[in-house]
């Protein structure tokens, strides 16, 4: 017969200080775990969300990132004449030769600087990316040195609000609009007209060509066509594949998250185990009595494991609460990390999702099982006679 749950619950309540402290510790650990996972989730989402298998990015063979690639005007013209791309209502093919550069811009505090990617695109470049929407102001006009900026970026850096002028070196751009790219990697970029950018940089070349196709099969055929063209010497990738490869950027953060998660979990399990051992040793007589009135070893074992589980579950819930507090108070702004391939900053938001929350609870439960099993095992093995004799 099983020992009623009420027995465990009352025991936990009776030792308020010790229970509270252990649950609190587990709460902290779960909160840390959730924060690092939310970070990983944020990075992963930034690089995977909205990257479509319908879009193709063409670069010079061997380039790992758009910034490293060089495409000549001739190559771009050749690509414009290739069949396949989707067309606008006006009949223009959605093929956008683009130039990517880095600029050094001051942060909002004005004291420190960071590197941000600037993307010069053809007028159809914006239409080729239907997931990107202007949320404030308007689109830039070619030939006027105007730019649009991701809304997230404008929060993190100085002089990037609508109407402000971005100055760097001898270049000037007037910000005329803010865009939202649904959390994708484009939210770490400044967009302007490719000819304006080429003129400012005195460069007569492009970095990559962005092409939108009717569906992913057409995209694959298009990639094959590029590969097959001996004169072109370019390499095409779907947008999805390109950003999957950039995912490497998130790897250090992921490794860090797992390191921290594993270590803190083991540490906290020891803490929980300690509390449960103390519970068992201070209740030796009680356990003897339970055995004497007929509860089996197994019910004792189960009962103590359940008690540990309750303790850790309380801690887990507390941890989720802490994590929510941290998210809503401190982590409301986007965070950045460096993309090693381009030396530019990638912005992302911490993301707490229901599976993550479930993961946090499962993490707490796992600590409960690990922390509760050995003390419970000891309790179950007590001999009735010695247990009852204990003072």
């Amino acid at each position: 017969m099983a020992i009623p749950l009420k027995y465990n619950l009352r025991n936990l309540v009776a030792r308020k200080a010790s229970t509270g402290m252990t649950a609190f510790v587990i709460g902290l650990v779960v909160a840390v775990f959730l924060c690092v996972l939310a970070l990983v989730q944020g990075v992963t989402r930034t690089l995977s969300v909205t990257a479509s298998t319908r879009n193709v990015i063409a670069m010079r063979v061997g380039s790992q990132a758009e910034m490293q690639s060089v495409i000549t005007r001739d190559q771009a013209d050749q690509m414009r004449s290739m069949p396949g791309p989707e067309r606008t209502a006006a009949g223009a093919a959605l093929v956008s030769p683009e130039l990517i550069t880095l600029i050094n811009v001051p942060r909002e505090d004005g004291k420190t600087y960071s590197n941000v990617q600037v993307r010069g695109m053809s007028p159809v470049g914006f239409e080729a990316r239907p997931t990107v929407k202007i949320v404030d102001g308007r689109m830039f006009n070619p030939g006027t040195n105007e730019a649009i900026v991701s809304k997230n970026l404008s929060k993190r850096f100085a002089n990037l609000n609508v109407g402000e002028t971005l100055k760097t070196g001898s270049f000037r751009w007037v910000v005329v609009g803010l865009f939202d790219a649904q959390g994708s990697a484009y939210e770490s970029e400044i967009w302007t007209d490719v000819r304006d950018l080429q003129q400012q940089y005195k460069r007569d070349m492009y970095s990559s060509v962005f092409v939108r196709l009717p569906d992913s099969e057409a995209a694959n055929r298009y990639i094959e066509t590029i590969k097959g063209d001996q004169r072109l010497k370019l390499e095409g990738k779907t947008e999805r594949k390109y950003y999957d490869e950039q995912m490497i950027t998130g790897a250090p953060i992921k490794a860090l998250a797992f390191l921290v998660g594993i270590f803190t979990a083991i540490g906290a399990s020891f803490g929980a185990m300690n509390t449960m051992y103390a519970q068992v040793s201070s209740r030796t007589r009680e356990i003897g009595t339970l055995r004497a009135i007929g509860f089996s070893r197994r019910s004792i074992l189960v009962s103590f494991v359940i008690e540990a589980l309750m303790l850790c579950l309380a801690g887990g819930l507390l941890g989720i609460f802490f994590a929510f507090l941290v998210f809503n108070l401190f982590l409301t702004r986007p965070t950045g990390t460096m993309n090693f391939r381009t030396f530019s900053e990638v912005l992302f938001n911490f993301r707490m999702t229901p599976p993550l929350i479930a993961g946090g609870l499962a993490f707490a439960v796992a600590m409960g099982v690990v922390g509760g099993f050995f003390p419970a095992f000891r309790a179950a093995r007590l001999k009735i006679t010695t247990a009852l004799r204990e003072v």
Partner: protein
Amino acid sequence: MKYFHLVWKNVFRKKLRTGLTASSIVIVLTLIVILTSLLEAMQADPSGGRGANRLVVQHATGLGNFLPLSQLQRIQQIPGVVAVTPELWFGGVYKDDKPENWIGQLSTNPDVYFDKIFDDAKIDPAVNAEWKATRNGFVAGESIAKKHGWKKGDHIVLKGTYIPLNADLVYIGPYSAGDESNIFFHNEYLNQSDWVLANKVTGLYYLKVDNGEDVPRVAAAIDKMFENSDAPTKTLTEKQFQLQFMEMMGNVKLLINGISLIILFAVTLIVANTVAMSARERVTEIAVMRTLGFGRGHILGFILSEAVLMSLLGGFLGVLLAKYLFIPALVAGAGKTSISIWLVNFKVSLSTLALAFAVSVGVGILAGFLPAIQSSRLRIVDGLRKVV
């Protein structure tokens, strides 16, 4: 000190409990040592703080924009400049695209590089001389050379990314410095290639100023000189230059520090819980000790020392584990991930050891404080009357 034995015995009275508590300290301290060392590795200063006289000139718009080589002579002529070299970030692919094969690749001028600019790096004069004489030769940081097992005379091929050129280089020998994740080869190797921009551009200029006071003047003079040219410059001290990369990881730093603080707080609570449990069980004993003539101060000292001793033991083991087991294991195991490039400079420094010691003592004192005060305030009669 004469009571050390008593404190020692009390710490090990309940072996299991002490073991578990110390284990959580071990784990936490291990983690903190790893995280701190990781941060240090990421922030590795190539000169170990001695680079105050060195400046980096980059394009005002930011990295990734070339500077014309014609600027070299004009920079050289500025009074106070000891030596200057153009440097170019080659960014080629070694072997394959896997992150473990990532290497920092810079072209420079060997005639002045180790002799006059990066002069606090250690390099065998014979190696330096041979490197100068070998146009396709390269020198590598000792750690990165060891990582790839390069022997003198080995050929490596770096497949160019933004520079359409495959560099075929010969390993000459190692140098040692704070940052050993880079290799250096001749500017001339690039200049004599068929790259369209060869002999025309550089990525940045790296220079040394004869004394620290002249640094701001020289930096301002360079930027002023090119202000209205096609390629305006931004001159930074070596430290500021490094910082712009760290800046991009600024949040990671904040995160690591935040995590460290929270888990320290958690482990303090775990230790406090243990010390409190053990003090509670010994109420009668403490009352007896008081009757025998030990003062309140003694009791306070005993309990506090127990907590500190326990956390020091845990901390000591944690540092040992981190230094001799986990960090070597991480370096070996993570060699295949993209964090491997930070791990080149991944070492436990003296300041990290000092930090670990301070943290252990701190956790002990914070955790032992409340239980110790409580025990010392206990009235003898109450203590003797209490049945545990």
